[in-house]
């Protein structure tokens, strides 16, 4: 069973627009949600994260909105830049015992200049 789902699979926006990437999860015990950014040929790197006690986390142009009741998150990238073109992975983990990180399948973002 897919623990973390992401949509869309790919997204293209113009430079300056806001890109919205969606994520949902199955396990209600998950309470920490990092987003990772991956460029071709590189490993994923932490971009921004949120815990379930918050409904919003902002870091510059990147904002996570979190809806615990619906088990959904979204990553908003405002004023998108060509350098933001990458694959974005939503991940989730719980806090009970020794918990693994579960990753979604990723959203490939292309920002056109």
């Amino acid at each position: 069973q897919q623990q973390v789902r992401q949509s869309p699979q790919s997204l293209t926006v113009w430079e300056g627009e806001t890109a919205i990437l969606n994520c949902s999860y199955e396990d209600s015990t998950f309470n920490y949600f990092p987003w990772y950014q991956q460029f071709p040929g590189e490993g994923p790197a932490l971009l921004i994260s949120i815990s379930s006690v918050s409904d919003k986390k902002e870091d510059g142009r990147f904002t996570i909105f979190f809806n615990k009741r619906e088990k959904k998150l979204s990553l908003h990238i405002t004023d998108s830049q060509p350098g933001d073109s990458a694959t974005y992975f939503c991940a989730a983990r719980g806090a009970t015992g020794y918990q693994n990180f579960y990753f979604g399948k990723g959203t490939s973002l292309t920002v056109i200049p």
Partner: protein
Amino acid sequence: GPKVLQIPSHQIIDMGQMVTLNCDPVSNHLYFYWYKQILGQQMEFLVNFYNGKVMEKSKLFKDQFSVERPDGSYFTLKIQPTALEDSAVYFCASSGGQSLAETLYFGSGTRLTVL
């Protein structure tokens, strides 16, 4: 920032041979992970490792797979024997602890091609 180094970056081997993937985790990190990624898609968890022991493994972590970190050196993933479906990019990751907001630091991956 902290760096996880993976050696080699590419590895091509014949089916049935043994392969060892090496990972030099972030200094002082205590938790180590291997993930498998096919065609730039989903990161699939394989195994995590702490204090010399496997803590958790997924169904993808077949009997042919093993991990170890001898004498605190490289954290290794060994596949013996390899199969065609093992072709993928393998990412090593490490973290300093198990607090809620603990960050996973990933290496650049080893692309394994099994012929």
